[in-house]
């Protein structure tokens, strides 16, 4: 299917565990983004990538790691999950001036 897909859709983990959220896009867009959405804070940029092997920090990067070895994939890793990282995570890619968002991953850290 064409588009941008995130997996898993829902994830429950425990404090201190490593968690990886996956993002895959089929358009070959150069730019990809990770956001977190929290009530009262809207969408906040965690990391973004301009191309394979090029990544940069956004507004709230602490506690997160990204990689981009292939254009179509942009995984987000929480190296040691904390309760404050409970959130809904959205991946996006950019075509022309439009950001296309995935359906999100709802992560709960207990």
């Amino acid at each position, binding site marked *: 299917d064409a588009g941008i897909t995130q997996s898993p859709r829902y994830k429950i983990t425990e404090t201190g565990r490593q968690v990886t959220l996956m993002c895959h896009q089929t358009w070959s867009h150069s730019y990809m983004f990770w956001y977190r959405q929290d009530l009262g804070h*809207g*969408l906040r940029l965690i990391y*973004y990538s301009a191309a394979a092997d090029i990544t940069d920090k956004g507004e709230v990067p602490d506690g997160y790691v990204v990689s981009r070895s292939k254009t179509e994939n942009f995984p987000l890793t929480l190296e040691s999950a904390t309760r404050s990282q409970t959130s809904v995570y*959205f991946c996006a890619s950019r075509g022309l*001036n439009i*950001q296309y968002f995935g359906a999100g991953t709802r992560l709960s850290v207990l």
Partner: protein
Amino acid sequence: QQQVKQSPQSLIVQKGGISIINCAYENTAFDYFPWYQQFPGKGPALLIAIRPDVSEKKEGRFTISFNKSAKQFSLHIMDSQPGDSATYFCAASLIYSGYSTLTFGKGTMLLVSP
């Protein structure tokens, strides 16, 4: 520092009424102002966008009004329908200046009552 301020946080409008959401920005270099619509359980999707050289853009029932001197822009939804109930985000960018990221407002939850 929040660069895009959005109001109100929530809004209830009767069916057929006009919904108005306002945003204010600080960086006068912003050159692209999109609005995104998000339904529950879905990711945001582009609704309509404007550049600062235009004062108004209309697409169907959705209109962006842009006031460059006041550094404000707003979304008007005419003849609001229950299907318009969603969260709306304004955003701003330096996209035509070569920057890739969007700065989002905090969102407005719109409920259109039948």
